C-alpha cells in the first residue's frame, strides 16, 4: 500500500463545504458532486473497473475511503487473475495442486464454490480457461483497445451466436466439483484456472461496505464496485438512490453515462432506492469484444464454455449480500428462459431486460421510478460462506428491523 499523502483541505469548495474537511488523496479518489452536502461521494478506478463510495454524514468520508482502500488491496492481491503476483495467479502458475492460501483467498474461493452449488452450476469458478480462450486474458481496458471492443448495438445480427458454430478458443469447463477447499487448504486440478468474476466483486463490495461503516463509526455507507452495490448502516432518507441501467442507454462510444432515460426501446434505466443489502447487475451489453470476426462477451455458460445466450441482455438482482446478488444476476443471464422462475423461487427481487428492451420484474421489484427495493430475504446458502462478514451484516440487519 502506498504511503498516505498529507490530507488536503477542501473546505470552501462548492458542494462539500459543510461536511467534509479533509480527505485522503493518495489513491486517486475523486470527489463527486451530488448536489447536497448531506452525503459525500468519491470514486476511483480499481480492479479494472470503477469504484464509488458514498457516506453520510459527509465527514465520515476519509475514514471510509481508507477502509475501502484496504479491502480493495486485499482483494486485488489475493483474487485478481490479471496480476501475475496475486495469490490466485501463483496457484495457477504452480499448475494446480494443493496450496495453503490466505484467509482472504479462501473466503473468496469459498464464496465462489458456494455460489456454484447454490445456482446448480449456472455460475462456476472453473470457467477461467474458457474465458481466457475467448480472449479475456487481461484487463478489459487492454482488450478494448486491441480488439475493438463493441458497444451495445441492439440488432439481432449483433447478438453473440456461439450456438451456430464452435467459438475459436473454446475450452471445456472442468466443473466446480473438481475444486476442493478445506479451511485454507485449496486443491485445484492441474490445468484448471479459476475465475471468481461472478462473485468476487460482490464479495469485495460486501467487505468494503462493512469495513467502511465500521471505520466511520456510524451513519451509512454505500460501496459500488463495478456496479455491484452493497450498503451498510443507516440509509439516508428512505434509501440510497441508485440507477440500474445498462450500456444500451449510454451514449455511443462511452461507458460514462449522465442521466438515464434515453433508451430508445423502453428499457431506460430506473432510479430505485436501496435501504439494505445489495444490488448487482449482470449484462451482456458490456465487456464485449470481437474475436475472429464475431462478437463475444464475458458471461460464459459453464455448460457449454460459450458466451451465454438467452433472452436477457441485463439482469439486476437485490439480495442480502452483494456476492449473492452478483451470483444470482449472472446465473439468471445464463439460465435464460428459466431465469424468472429461478429468481421467483428464491424470493429475490429482480429486474430483467430482454434484448428487445422489454422489462420484467419479479418478487416486488418496484415499477415506479424512485421506488424502494423491497428487503431481500436472507438465504443461508451463500451468506453462510461469508466468514468474517456475516456477523456484522447479521447485526446490522437486526438493527434495521
Amino acid at each position, binding site marked *: 500500500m502506498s504511503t498516505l499523502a498529507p490530507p488536503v483541505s477542501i473546505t470552501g469548495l462548492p458542494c462539500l463545504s459543510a461536511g467534509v474537511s479533509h480527505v485522503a488523496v493518495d489513491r486517486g479518489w475523486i470527489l463527486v458532486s451530488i448536489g447536497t452536502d*448531506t452525503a459525500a461521494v468519491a470514486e476511483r*478506478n480499481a480492479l479494472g473497473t470503477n469504484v464509488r463510495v458514498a457516506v453520510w454524514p459527509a465527514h465520515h468520508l476519509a475514514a471510509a475511503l481508507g477502509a475501502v482502500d484496504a479491502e480493495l488491496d486485499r482483494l486485488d492481491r489475493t483474487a485478481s487473475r490479471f496480476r501475475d503476483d496475486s495469490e490466485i495467479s501463483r496457484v495457477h502458475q504452480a499448475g494446480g495442486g494443493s496450496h495453503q492460501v490466505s484467509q482472504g483467498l479462501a473466503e473468496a474461493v469459498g464464496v465462489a464454490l458456494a455460489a456454484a452449488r447454490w445456482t446448480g452450476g449456472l455460475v462456476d469458478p472453473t470457467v477461467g480457461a474458457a474465458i481466457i480462450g475467448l480472449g479475456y486474458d487481461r484487463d478489459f481496458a487492454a482488450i478494448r483497445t486491441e480488439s475493438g471492443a463493441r458497444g451495445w448495438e441492439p440488432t439481432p445480427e449483433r447478438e453473440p451466436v456461439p450456438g451456430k458454430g464452435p467459438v475459436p478458443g473454446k475450452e471445456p469447463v472442468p466443473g466446480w466439483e473438481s475444486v476442493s477447499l478445506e479451511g485454507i487448504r485449496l486443491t485445484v486440478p492441474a490445468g484448471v484456472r479459476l475465475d471468481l468474476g461472478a462473485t468476487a466483486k460482490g464479495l469485495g463490495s460486501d467487505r468494503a461496505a462493512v469495513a467502511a461503516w465500521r471505520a466511520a463509526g456510524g451513519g451509512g455507507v454505500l460501496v459500488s464496485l463495478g*456496479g455491484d452495490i452493497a450498503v451498510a448502516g*443507516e440509509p439516508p432518507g428512505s434509501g440510497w438512490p*441508485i440507477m440500474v441501467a445498462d450500456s444500451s442507454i449510454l451514449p455511443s462510444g462511452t461507458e460514462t*453515462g*449522465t442521466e438515464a432515460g434515453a433508451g430508445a426501446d423502453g428499457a431506460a434505466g430506473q432510479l430505485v432506492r436501496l435501504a439494505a443489502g445489495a444490488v448487482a*447487475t449482470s449484462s451482456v451489453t458490456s465487456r464485449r469484444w470481437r474475436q475472429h470476426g464475431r462478437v463475444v462477451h464475458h458471461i460464459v455458460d459453464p455448460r457449454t464454455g460459450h458466451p451465454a445466450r438467452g433472452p436477457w441482455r441485463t439482469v439486476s438482482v437485490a439480495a442480502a449480500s452483494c456476492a449473492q446478488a452478483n451470483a444470482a444476476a449472472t446465473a439468471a443471464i445464463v439460465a435464460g428462459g428459466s431465469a424468472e422462475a429461478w429468481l421467483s423461487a428464491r424470493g429475490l427481487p429482480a429486474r430483467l431486460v430482454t434484448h428487445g428492451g422489454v422489462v420484467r420484474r419479479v418478487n416486488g421489484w418496484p415499477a415506479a421510478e424512485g421506488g424502494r427495493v423491497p428487503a431481500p430475504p436472507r438465504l443461508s446458502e451463500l451468506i453462510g460462506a461469508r466468514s468474517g462478514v456475516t456477523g456484522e451484516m447479521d447485526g446490522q440487519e437486526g438493527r434495521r428491523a
Partner: protein
Amino acid sequence: MNQEPQDPQGAAERRHGLRRVRHMSNWTAAGLIAATAVTTVYLARGSGMTSTPSAAARASAASAANGASAAPGTHKSCITVPVATSGGSGVTRQAPVTKCSSGAAGSGPVVIYVTRPPNAEDN
C-alpha cells in the same frame, strides 16, 4: 407659615427652561434608540445572523415542497440524484447533474477536486 417670595417673571422663566430640557432629553433618547437599532442590525449582518431560514429549515422546506415527509426518527436528506449506477461490469459511472431543489448547495462542477496523481496506475 413659610411662603415663597412672589416673583411671577422668574417662575415663568424656570418653567420654560424645564420644558426645553425635557424636549432635548426626548430627542437625545430617540437618537440613542435609533443609533442602537442601526448598530444592532449592522453587527447582526456582519456576523451572519440574518433572519433567513437555516440550511436545515431550507432542506425541510424543500422536502415538503417535493411532497416528501420524514418518518419520525429517520434521517431525511436531500439526495435526489443516484449516487451510483448498477449496470453490469464496465457500466458503472454516473455523473449526477440534478441539483437539490432547495438551491442550498450543489452549484459546483460535477467533479470538484481531482486528486489522482498523473502517473498513478491501478492493477
